[in-house]
Structure formats: C-alpha cells, structure tokens
C-alpha cells in the first residue's frame, strides 16, 4: 500500500463480514421458513 494511506483494513473487513452474515443469514432464515410455512 502506498505510503501515507491510512491503515484501517480492519474496519473494511468488519463491514464486509457483517454484510455477508446479514444477507446469508436472512437467506437461510427465509429458506427454513419456506420449508415449514
């Protein structure tokens, strides 16, 4: 990474993980709900 660029990758990773957890989690919940309506 070029010099002088802020080192804040942890925040980026956290945001991407949170997004994946919410969207995949909702997909799984929806799938399970449609199996037993």
């Amino acid at each position, binding site marked *: 990474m070029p010099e002088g660029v802020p080192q804040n990758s942890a*925040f980026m990773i956290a*945001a*991407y993980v949170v997004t994946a957890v919410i969207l995949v989690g909702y997909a799984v919940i929806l799938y399970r709900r449609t199996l037993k309506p």
Partner: protein
Amino acid sequence: MKLLQTGRWITAVGLVLLAGVYVRALAFTPVERFQGPAQKIYYVHVPSAVVSMMAMGLVGLAGILFLLLKDQRFDRFGEASAEVGTAFSVVMLTTGPIWAKPIWGTWWTWDARLTLTLFLFLLFLGYLLLRGAVTDPGLRARYSAVLGICGLVLLPFIHLSVYLFRTLHPQPIVLKPSAPSLPGEMLVTLLVSFLVFVLLYVGFVMQRYALSLLREEAAHA
C-alpha cells in the same frame, strides 16, 4: 411452487455473485488515498442504502395500488418488500458507522441524513409490527398501505437531506444531476455491487411473497 424455486435460485446466484463483488472490491479496485481501505465499505454501504430506499418506495407504490384496486397481490408484495428492505437497512445502518469511525472519528452523529435513515429503519420495523398486531386482514392491509405511503413520502427528504441541512454525510457522487465523480474502476465496482444487491432483493422478495401464499393456502386448508 415455481415462484419459490425461482426465488431460491435467484438468491443463490446473487450470493455467489456477492462473493465475486467482494473479490473485485478487495483485490481489483484501487485503494482511495485519503480514506484508505475503509473507503471500500462504500461498495456495500451505498447499494444497501439504495436498495433499502427502493424497497420502501415499492412498499409505498404497492400501498397506493392496493388502496386503488383492492388487489391482495399488492398487499402481499408490500409485506415482502418491507421485510426484505428491513434486512438491507440493517446492512446500511451497520456498515455506515463502521465506515464513520475511522473517517469521522465517531460511530454515529445525529445529523439529518443519519437520523432520517434511522427513521426509515424504524418505519420498516413499525410496518412489520403493525402487520403482526392487526388480526383483521382487511384492516391490516389498509393500515399497512397508509404506513407504506408515509415511507414513500420520506424518501425524497432522505436523498435531499445532504443538500437541505448541514451534515457530515458525504453528498451523492453518483445519483446527482452531473456526471458521477468517481474513477472508472471504482464506478464499475459500485454498479456491479448495486446490480447484485438488486438481484438479491428480487430473490428475497420472490421467496417472501411465496411464503405468504403458502401461509394463506395452509390457513384455508
């Protein structure tokens, strides 16, 4: 049910493509010099915000059409869109503060844009709570339609809040009258991500709509 199966497939394809968006954003899109890697949160935060607003807009339109035509399909669609919109607004409201902390130095500030988007999330929640609380199907559909229309009215205020009020939130750099002020590679990543989020919205709504149909069939059986 064909609608349910199609919705499941679209969702599965959307989730695979979401992984592709992650690869493109993390490995093949340049790092912004002043914000650093945290700027890449933009590629999930902005599409989730736009899809949340689109979902509420469609809930409102479905509400108008329901009140005009008394067609249950619009009520069912409104319910599906509101639930899916809630999920996307949770993404918006979690990724926003995660970006804000390293860039602004604070997780949250009560400025107009942030407060109005929180209000949008609360409207989604209120809509779902209302549907759970009213047992009469006719009344439930009418009350929900009116609340959905209130949400639709809120949307222009959210979009214009960065122009109308002093706010920390960045102004639109794509959805504005002039050309997008974003380098080509970043713009492509954002647009691809937006299309994938829309695809996921479609897959989720189809499944949620099918779930309502299955519940109605079970209730009448």
